[in-house]
């Protein structure tokens, strides 16, 4: 599974992208966030307040209850500020 982080999510975690093996107990984006939080203080800080996080699976916006599978590209980022 490919994970992507942008803006301050990326800065707090310390990397922009990584490839992980999806744990068997993780079925949704929200489950993925709970698992990521356990991976270290940077992750815990990045996902401390998930109201400030947006999610994309395979480059489309999704809600936290979106199912995820091992082939997915999942991205985590703050609300967008372009334009």
């Amino acid at each position, binding site marked *: 599974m490919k994970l992507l982080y942008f*803006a301050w999510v990326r800065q707090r975690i310390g990397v922009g992208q990584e490839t992980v093996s999806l744990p068997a107990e993780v079925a949704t984006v929200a489950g993925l966030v709970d698992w990521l939080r356990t991976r270290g203080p940077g992750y815990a800080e990045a996902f401390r307040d998930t109201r400030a996080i947006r999610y994309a699976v395979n480059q489309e916006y999704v809600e936290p209850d979106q199912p995820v599978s091992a082939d997915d590209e999942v991205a985590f980022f703050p609300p967008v*500020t*372009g334009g």
Partner: protein
Amino acid sequence: MAVRVQEADFDVGAELAALTAGNHKVGGLGVFIGVVRDTAGDAAVAGMTLEHYPGMTERQLAAIEAEAVARWPIEASLIVHRVGRLAPGENIVLVACASAHRQAALDATAFLIDWLKTKAPFWKLEETADGESWVDARESDDAAAARWRR
């Protein structure tokens, strides 16, 4: 219909001329150009860095443009968005929409930039005397985008 993400500046005159060249059905061209300001609230801004999500950005921009084409009789449209470091006064984004009719061109242009602001995965890192900070999303942008929801 075209979307581009690039570090280089764009030539507004050349982009607009190319957009409508040879299409004599066009009666009006609406354009919005976003520019880096030198202030944010009370703070002086030395510059900013635009980050984006390659792949998803182009996909979202194309979806935004397709939505505009579905809503208005558009002859041609263009979105060019820059990434990388930009100084005050530099162009950030060019949005343009050509139509037979003025109102469609203007409305579609406003729609494109309003939706882009809340949907396209770009983020601004602003440089002030206090250091670098990520620009917060603004409720006024959500409100502007919500006008077009249906």
